[in-house]
């Protein structure tokens, strides 16, 4: 009898438990994405918080410093893009002014990373803000003295990455299997023991984007020149930019 009562209590307990816990299950899931469009009203409270921050920025950002005849994106192009070529060319040109003045040497090549191009350049006026959007990072130009063997590793990296990492001073051609068929620096074959001066940024020099070939290096020159400032300086002296996709990094299909 006692055993029976115990059993009943257990039943009651289970029942209460199951009642409280009444297993709710997911019966339906609806998923969608809502575009944040200008048809949505601006929340006034939020805008009031943003306003003073925005006003301070706009003072600096809105000055027009150059002109873009087209819209340039890093997705337009296979292994080299117009915007990437522009970035590499700017680092080469602006960086070399500082590097040459300081060392009387010249930059042989430039390597940046595709992921480091953070925005498109829209057709129309180029402002200070454009430079901030394309290059928001505080990275600076670094010139690294590399031996020919390291340049080989760099070419190998580029062939394996299969990405449009911006380059200058290098010509790299891959076959249809992404194997290197031609690799030139300054238009000449790579000489194993020769020292080359490659400009990049501090992030990549420190192994960013798995670029492990910069270290160890014979010597490093920190130009204390932010890439973004190099862009702003370049835009200020060029009335209209004109970057193009070219044959610096290609694949024969």
């Amino acid at each position, binding site marked *: 009898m006692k055993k029976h009562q115990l059993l*009943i209590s*257990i*039943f*009651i307990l*289970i*029942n209460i438990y*199951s009642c409280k816990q*009444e*297993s*709710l*299950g*997911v*019966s*339906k*899931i*609806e*998923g*969608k*994405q*809502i*575009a*944040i*469009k*200008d048809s*949505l*009203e*601006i*929340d*006034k*409270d*939020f805008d009031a*918080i*943003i306003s003073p*921050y*925005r006003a*301070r*920025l706009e003072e*600096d*950002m809105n000055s027009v410093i150059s002109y873009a005849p087209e*819209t340039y*994106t890093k997705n337009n192009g296979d292994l080299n893009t117009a915007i990437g070529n522009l970035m590499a060319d700017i680092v080469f040109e602006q960086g070399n002014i500082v590097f040459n003045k300081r060392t009387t040497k010249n930059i042989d090549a430039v390597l940046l990373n595709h992921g480091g191009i*953070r*925005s*498109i350049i*829209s*057709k*129309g*006026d180029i402002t200070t803000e454009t430079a*901030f*959007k394309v290059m*928001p*990072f*505080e990275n600076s130009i670094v010139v690294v003295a590399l031996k020919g063997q390291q340049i080989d590793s760099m070419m190998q990296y580029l062939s394996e990455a*299969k990405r449009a990492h911006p380059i200058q001073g290098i010509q790299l051609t891959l076959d249809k299997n992404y194997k290197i068929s031609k690799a030139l620096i300054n238009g000449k074959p790579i000489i194993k023991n020769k020292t080359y001066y490659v400009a990049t940024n*501090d*992030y990549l020099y*420190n*192994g*960013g*984007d798995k670029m492990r070939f910069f270290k160890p290096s014979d010597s490093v020159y920190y130009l204390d020149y932010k890439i973004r400032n190099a862009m702003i300086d370049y835009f200020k002296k060029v009335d209209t930019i004109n970057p193009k996709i070219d044959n610096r990094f290609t694949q024969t299909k």
Partner: protein
Amino acid sequence: MKRRTFIQQSTAATALVTLGGFGFQSCNASVKTKKITILHTNDVHSHIDAFGPEDGRNANQGGVARRATLVEAIRNENPNTLLLDAGDIFQGTPYFNYYGGELEFKLMSKMKYDAATIGNHDFDNGIDGLYAQLPHASFQFLSANYNFKNTVMDTHVKPYHVFKKEGIKIGVFGVGIKLDGLVDKKMYKETDYLDPIEVATDMSRILKEEEQCDLIICLSHLGYYYSKNPNKVCDLSLAKATKNIDLIIGGHTHTFLPKPTVAQNSEGKNVLVNQVGCYGINLGKIDFYFDAENNKTADGTSIIV
């Protein structure tokens, strides 16, 4: 397993009807459908303002003050709403260069974000730069596979959090991408990276079995999928390798999906994987309807995407 307990409980209930006259129906009557809304963003990258009318790709899209209007409207419709972010809050506009992320956190707090995970760019002013902005954030930071023990972020990041909405327990945990080779070590310092799959396996077990969650969400900054590097751990591989996760909210790859992906987990059950591009152009919205198990249709959960 769940099915078995249910059968056992029904047997008990039936037994009681004969023994004591209690009705199982009496408690069933109290069960009504409940709706949980999950709103999410990823890779907003300091895009406080909407894109300008001249922008070549995203003209007039995005903007925090517009997102705030939308979120408020959705919350008014369903108070049982969670708002989550999958990382890379920082970096991308001069707002970050000038103010270091202060405004991003202030606005997210005002919008009542519940939690965010940490993206690689959230280390862009160093781990100290992230730490310095914490006073402006009133939401949770969740990361289960970054061990911050030997950094200033120690105790400021939790592996998971359980949110309760109308009696429904929602477990949310965070996972982040491998920092080595992506972020300068001098930025993330002694942050330890743990294997995301192992950690996610652990987390989903804890949330399911110990915390008894009704819904399990993984907030991920691993990336959706890497077609050129298919073996790299990503949201799709995480979905496939784990169980009990209902939804993976992703980031990092700035992936615009035409609709949320329905993937299959290690038990062949459905997992929703979603990501809404970047820059605050879109808001993800996933509604979960809860019903008594025995009210469910024969074919289980219907997914409408």
